[in-house]
């Protein structure tokens, strides 16, 4: 039987939207999402919340969570599925597609660049990632475990394309932290 989405579709989606907004405007800051839904594994609750808050019939989605996850996403968001390069949102529970192959937007419409939502093993407020850029006073650090190999190098390789690029949201349980394209990992 289909697992439910948000208990309160309107208010919970607004809370989740607010959380994403906070995360993207304060890169590296860990933001809890409450209440979050319980989507089918391997989608994390935070990932489920982002999908429900951000996706609809106008946002092509790519995901790697298997058939149950696909059914849940289709039922609750109505979003069409797409190949990774055409997706507006990507929900990666395993290794994501090569970042350079994803939709980076155009110079005229850079905001069309995809948002990559990625499950990670842990998120900690202190760690090895040192971040700099808009929304950060001087510098912050973030601890992320379970990043795919070469992920940060792939991301850094997109930097010359700015303002084209990807926005990235890490999910762990019901928590998120974001690396918008403007953030530099030093």
């Amino acid at each position, binding site marked *: 039987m289909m697992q439910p989405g948000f208990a309160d579709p309107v208010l919970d989606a607004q809370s989740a939207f607010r959380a994403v907004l906070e995360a993207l405007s304060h890169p590296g800051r860990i933001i809890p999402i409450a209440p979050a839904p319980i989507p089918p594994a391997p989608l994390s609750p935070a990932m489920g919340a982002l999908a429900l808050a951000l996706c*609809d*019939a*106008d946002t092509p989605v790519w995901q790697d969570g298997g058939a149950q996850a696909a059914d849940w996403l*289709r*039922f609750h968001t*109505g*979003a*069409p599925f797409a190949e990774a390069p055409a997706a507006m949102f990507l929900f990666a529970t395993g290794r994501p597609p090569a970042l350079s192959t994803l939709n980076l937007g155009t110079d005229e419409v850079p905001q069309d660049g995809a948002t990559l939502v990625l499950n990670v093993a842990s998120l900690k407020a202190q760690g090895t990632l040192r971040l700099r850029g808009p929304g950060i006073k001087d510098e912050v650090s973030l601890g992320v475990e379970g990043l795919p190999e070469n992920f940060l190098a792939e991301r850094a390789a997109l930097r010359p394309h700015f303002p084209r690029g990807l926005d990235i949201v890490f999910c762990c349980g019901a928590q998120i932290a974001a690396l918008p394209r403007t953030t530099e990992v030093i």
Partner: protein
Amino acid sequence: MYVSVKGGESAIANAHAWLAERRRGDAALPEITADQIAEQLGLAVERVMAEGACIDRDLAALALKQARGDSTEAAFLLRAYRNTLPRFGYAAPLDTAAMQVQRRISATYKDLPGGQVLGPSFDYTHRLLELDLAGRKGEPDPAPQADTGVTPMPRVTEMLAREGLMARDTATDAEPPDLTREGLRFPAIRALALQSMARGDEGFLLALGYSTQRGYGNAHPFVGEIRMGAVPVEFTPPELGFAIDIGDVVVTECQMVNQFAGNNETPPQFTRGYGLVPGQNERKAMAMSLVDRALRASELGEEITAPAQDAEFVLYHCDNVESTGFVEHLKLPHYVDFQSELEKLRGIRARWAADRGEKS
């Protein structure tokens, strides 16, 4: 440049209270309900649905009541409400050949399959005021019914196309562009122009369509066919994965047949202009089809000489909510702009006077 101004809150609240009182009118008369508007002022409601770009008869009727009958204000209200709703998806293109026809006429063929069906039309009325309608006239006699229903009605344009005399519009599976999701870009493709005109201001399109007949543009139009009636709306909910009918929508469609001189590749033939609007509104459907054909000038290699052929002119100005916004924004405080204009003018006048003083 604008400057922030505070104050006026109580003036605004009082203005709105007075507006509500004016809207109600004479309290000795019964208050009109949205149901009554939807049923008895149906064409006004349909105009609001068209220009508000949202098909919902009850909401359009409510908007008309709230707007005191101002159809542009009502369209604005409907657009604002529409913006609060999520979009569940896209219906299959309406199949107007499957229309349950209430009216269908052709000015190009007298005898055609299915015949000339007049439907509930103002045509052939004498345009004399029916003075006894002013009060409650009571129930009209039921409309007469024939023993059988109307027979299937093939499209007139299809009859011409079969003879090779009418250019066919090739159907593609391409996703059409959406005005509400991305801005207008030029050269605008026809799908964008049709979407824009379907929600466009009826008066603006009527005037432009009329201008093409009067020599502003090279039009020799004939009404190939006008049809009005209910068309099934078919939608595939993502949860289901198969198509269902979710209801019906009444639309008016106009196929305008126009001459085309031909060129090196294409022999002389007819081309069509197309109009499709919600509800019963053939004035707008006809105007839209005239302007659609005029806008195809560049596609057909015709010289562009008239406003109706100029896509930027037509599409940037046909939306009455946008037009109203920009015209009416002039009411907003421009105190600082105007101060600088005043100072500039005073300076210029002083120099003008000084120059004349020196010369004399």
